[in-house]
């Protein structure tokens, strides 16, 4: 099982000839992902790590991709995402940082009309060890297992997943939701999927300041989630009004503080780790 991506995932890379696109194509292949095609307008006919490059997604569809990693500059992300959706691709990971959020809103709305899933923007993607990876998470941190991880952060996720693996706790699927204010998937969406997934026995949520995704997740967990959940929240000491690296990590009008999120999780019976590396201990306590 696993969620969103698995052994049937056939990966396309949009922007494959770029620095990021080309490097991570190689890494995805090493992970075990089935990267079937790449797209860079004007570069059709080349190969990157043995993967054929096309000028348009339309042409790349002959390789029957069903997921894509979009690694093009921010001003071109909307067009690339619409191109993938228009051609029927159902899983889109948008790696790019700095996508205008009016563009992200339109992408997310259009994806809904196509029944497609958007992972990101501004996130490290998704990996189901070692069935499939669409994104840039380092291969070395993973182990296959029974814990689902969803996170709004990149490196912090690696830190936590690495700690899990070091403690012999493998993962079903690890998903980076993205650090922007508008992202395709919320914690609630992912909790719903992990709840359905037979492989997943427990869930780790890695949140941060900004928005109400964690509070919504806590509400949802109370009502709908039977599997154990543990959490970590970054930004307890972040000052209000400042964008803490991620566009979405900002406390505005008194909303989105770490305290509010931690309180909500604790009220929903979700233990919250003090340090990222405490997550394995918390999990071991409840599993």
């Amino acid at each position: 099982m696993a969620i969103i991506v698995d052994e049937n995932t056939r990966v396309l890379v949009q922007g494959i000839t770029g620095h990021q696109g080309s490097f991570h194509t190689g890494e995805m292949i090493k992970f075990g992902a089935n990267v079937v095609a790449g797209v860079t307008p004007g570069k059709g006919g080349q190969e990157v790590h043995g993967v054929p490059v096309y000028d348009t997604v339309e042409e790349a569809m002959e390789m029957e991709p069903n997921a894509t990693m979009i690694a093009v500059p921010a001003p071109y992300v909307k067009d690339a995402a619409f191109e993938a959706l228009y051609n029927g691709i159902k899983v889109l990971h948008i790696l790019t940082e700095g996508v205008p959020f009016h563009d992200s809103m339109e992408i997310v709305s259009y994806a809904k009309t196509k029944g497609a899933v958007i992972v990101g923007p501004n996130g490290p993607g998704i990996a189901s060890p070692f069935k499939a990876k669409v994104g840039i998470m380092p291969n070395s941190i993973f182990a296959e297992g029974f814990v689902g991880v969803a996170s709004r952060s990149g490196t912090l996720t690696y830190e936590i997943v690495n700690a899990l693996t070091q403690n012999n706790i493998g993962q079903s699927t690890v998903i980076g939701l993205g650090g922007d204010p508008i992202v395709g998937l919320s914690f609630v969406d992912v909790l719903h999927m992990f709840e359905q997934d037979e492989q997943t026995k427990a869930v780790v949520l890695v949140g941060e300041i900004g928005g109400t995704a964690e509070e919504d997740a806590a509400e949802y967990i109370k009502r709908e989630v039977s599997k154990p959940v543990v959490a970590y929240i970054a930004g307890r000491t972040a000052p209000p009004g400042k964008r803490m690296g991620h566009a979405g990590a900002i406390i505005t009008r008194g909303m989105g503080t770490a305290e509010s999120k931690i309180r909500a999780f604790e009220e929903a019976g979700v233990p919250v780790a003090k340090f990222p590396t405490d997550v394995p201990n918390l999990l071991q306590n409840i599993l």
Partner: protein
Amino acid sequence: MKLYEYQAKEIFRQYGIPVPEGYVIDKVDDIKKHEESVVLKAQVLVGGRGKAGGIKIASGTDEAKKIASELLGAQIKGVRVKKLLIEKKLDIERELYLSIILDRRNKCPLLMFSEEGGVDIESVDEEKIIKLYIDPLIGIQGFMIRYLLKKCTLEQKKELGRIIKQLYRIFKEKDCELVEINPLVVDRDGKLWAADAKIIVDTDALYRHPEIEENVEESTDLEREAKKMGYALIELDGDIAVIANGAGLTMATLDAITHFGAKPRIFLDLGGTDDPEIVKNAFYLVKKSNPKAVLVNIFGGVTKCDTVAKGIVAALEEYPIDVPMIVRISGVHEDVGRKMLEARGVECHTTMLDAVKRCAEVVVKGGGK
């Protein structure tokens, strides 16, 4: 990015949303002759400007000049006033509230209207706020406005509907995170006016809005310099300069430092990079921030540990720092990186917790080199 009130009102004017007659000055001599009362409004990007004395009423030219000379150059909540907006005083009958914000949960624009305006919207009862979620694929439609107008007691329904449509156009066409009219005033003649105007533009969309000037007031000098160099840096009031890779990890490092009783001086997110130069140049900013200690926290992935080590070694030459530096280095190419650093006498740890504890200790108990 917040716009100044006068900038926001200029956009309102372009979109046909009525704003009071007015003009902007940066010196007292530019005040025109006024027979009637005028309002002088300090142009600063901080909230609560009115309560802090940034909005004054003058009954004629002389009083206006007197007030202007007091306000210009004064500090409002720590920000120097460089410009004043001078407007005709409105004859206020009612104050309403109208805004469109980005709703993160529903991933769409959210329109809010309340008949209780002129106060902070967070202090208004939920049931006194009419909310409309707008599907970005279809935009604002007639039925949404009808639904809102139905619930409001205002007589000027047609004009309100028109203002709502135009406000949505601004929200969309100017890539806004927020457009707010608070208060939306009904004057004694029954006319509607945007008495105040607040616009926050999506910083990431500024590239397609050459018509919008960048405002620098929200950042410190060091933050602006960092931004120009391509780093996400936040200045804080503590002692430890924190460099990490990734926003979440950097925040987690600040949190851990605080947990152990110390305080961070800067938040500096290296992001993902494989260029040692980028690592090295970050130390230029670290040095400028004048910290009591430096903590580097790297979990190597896209950003490999040896890249970071190379950058740090180069920085030791170019931007030597005479305060303690603790490095946590783990992940891809960890061994190579650690060896390079230890060869130069840099204190290295493998786990974040060890590094943070040690660094806090150094600062709090003075246990440095």
